[in-house]
């Protein structure tokens, strides 16, 4: 086979030239473009990884913050609940106190009304009893009820023991030797004399006596001297009656 040596050398030169030109126009540029792209992709990956790491870190921080907020919320909620409970208890206590006060006031008022009622009842009952007893006594016996009362009063004066007599004596002396006798009715002069005699005999001499007509002394007679009192009246009986009546009424009220 014939080989033209000029063509042979020319082909070697051609090949080397082609190699140079392709290196300049093809390989260099293409490889550079590919390497650049690879570097860019690597950079993007690195950036993405960094961003991912950052995002994970931020997510962790967010989670942590969220947890802290939750805990804080829990604490605040507990505090608020406790404060609300305390406030509720305080208000309840206050209301209870107010209710107690109102109740006490109401009970006091009730008691006052009750007292007033019973006082009034006693007065009326006594008057009625007095009138009834008087009517009965005057119907049954032929003597005045007042006489009986005075009799009873005199009997009491006479039945005074020594100690009581002494106290009365001292009282009369300390009270300027004045004795007051109150009665719901007028005392006749003979009966006044009897009273004075009994007093002189039983207690002392040298005093002035004053008779007062006092309707409040219900169907009775009483002797007052410087804070001491000797009396007989329907009040004693009426008080017993009123007590028993009060008890009965209260039982009724409770039952209601």
């Amino acid at each position, binding site marked *: 086979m014939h*080989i033209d040596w000029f063509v042979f050398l020319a082909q070697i030169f051609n090949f080397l030239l*082609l190699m140079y030109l392709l*290196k300049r126009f093809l390989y260099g540029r*293409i*490889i550079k473009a590919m390497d650049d792209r690879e570097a860019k992709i690597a950079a993007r990956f690195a950036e993405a990884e960094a961003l991912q790491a950052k995002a994970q870190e931020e997510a962790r921080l967010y989670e942590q913050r969220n947890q802290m907020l939750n805990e804080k919320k829990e604490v605040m909620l507990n505090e608020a609940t406790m404060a609300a409970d305390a406030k509720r208890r305080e208000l309840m206590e206050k209301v209870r106190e107010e209710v107690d006060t109102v109740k006490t006031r109401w009970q006091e008022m009730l008691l006052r009304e009750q007292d007033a009622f019973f006082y009034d009842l006693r007065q009326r009952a006594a008057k009625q009893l007095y009138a009834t007893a008087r009517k009965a006594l005057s119907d049954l016996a032929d003597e005045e009820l007042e006489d009986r009362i005075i009799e009873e009063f005199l009997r009491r004066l006479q039945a005074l023991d020594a100690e009581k007599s002494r106290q009365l004596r001292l009282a009369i002396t300390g009270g300027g030797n004045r004795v007051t006798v109150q009665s719901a009715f007028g005392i006749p002069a003979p009966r006044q004399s009897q009273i004075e005699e009994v007093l002189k005999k039983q207690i002392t001499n040298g005093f002035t006596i004053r008779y007062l007509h006092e309707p409040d002394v219900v169907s009775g007679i009483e002797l007052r001297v410087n804070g001491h009192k000797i009396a007989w009246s329907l009040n004693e009986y009426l008080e017993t009656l009123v007590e028993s009546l009060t008890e009965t009424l209260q039982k009724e009220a409770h039952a209601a």
Partner: protein
Amino acid sequence: MEVVSLNQISPDQVILWSWNFITINVTILYTWLVMAILVGGSHLITRNLSSEMNVSRWQHFLEVVISIIRGEISEMTKKGADHYVPLVGTLFLFICVSNVLVIVPGFVAPTSSMTTTAALATCVFIAVPFYGISRNGLLHYVKEYFQPTFIFFPFHVMGELSRTLALTVRLFGNIMSHEKVIGILLAVTPFLFPVVMQILGLLIGVIQAYIFAILSMVYIASALSAEDEAHTAVKKEGSGA
């Protein structure tokens, strides 16, 4: 009947212009044509290269080609593939384009000229020691020819020459014979069958280009690896002592 004249057995015989020893024949003309296509096409495609994600189809095509060449080289040399891309890539592209253009009527592949294949094989023949010496130094390279003993020196030289000759003749034989077969078949069965042969010829042309480039790389790589191994063995001995 003369199917193919003796002058047509090689495009070297078709002389276009001649002055003294300077001869311009069809081989050189078509070589220039292939060079113009390769360089012009490369320039056109690579003048607006993009390193972004959106690239043109032609750039994609070239990147795929270059990536395959780099990959093949990397498998053999393990490192520094870009260093050998110009030689191996140019061998592949030049031979491949030359062989594929055969389907153009009137075109004669420069690779069907033994002058061209011999020139290419000579380039490889020179490139092997060039890369070996440039990488590991002259002494190491020369020492390889005397391994395992000096008696092997002639065999090494013969091996170098014979494989260069093999490269030359393999490519030349394949392409030239194919062209001649096509020519003969056109005379015998002008319809259909030559088309099938043309298709087969395209396949053979690409395969031959691949074989030439890969064998060149194998020769270079074998020289490099042998030197690397020897170099490593010497280093180990030195460190062991």
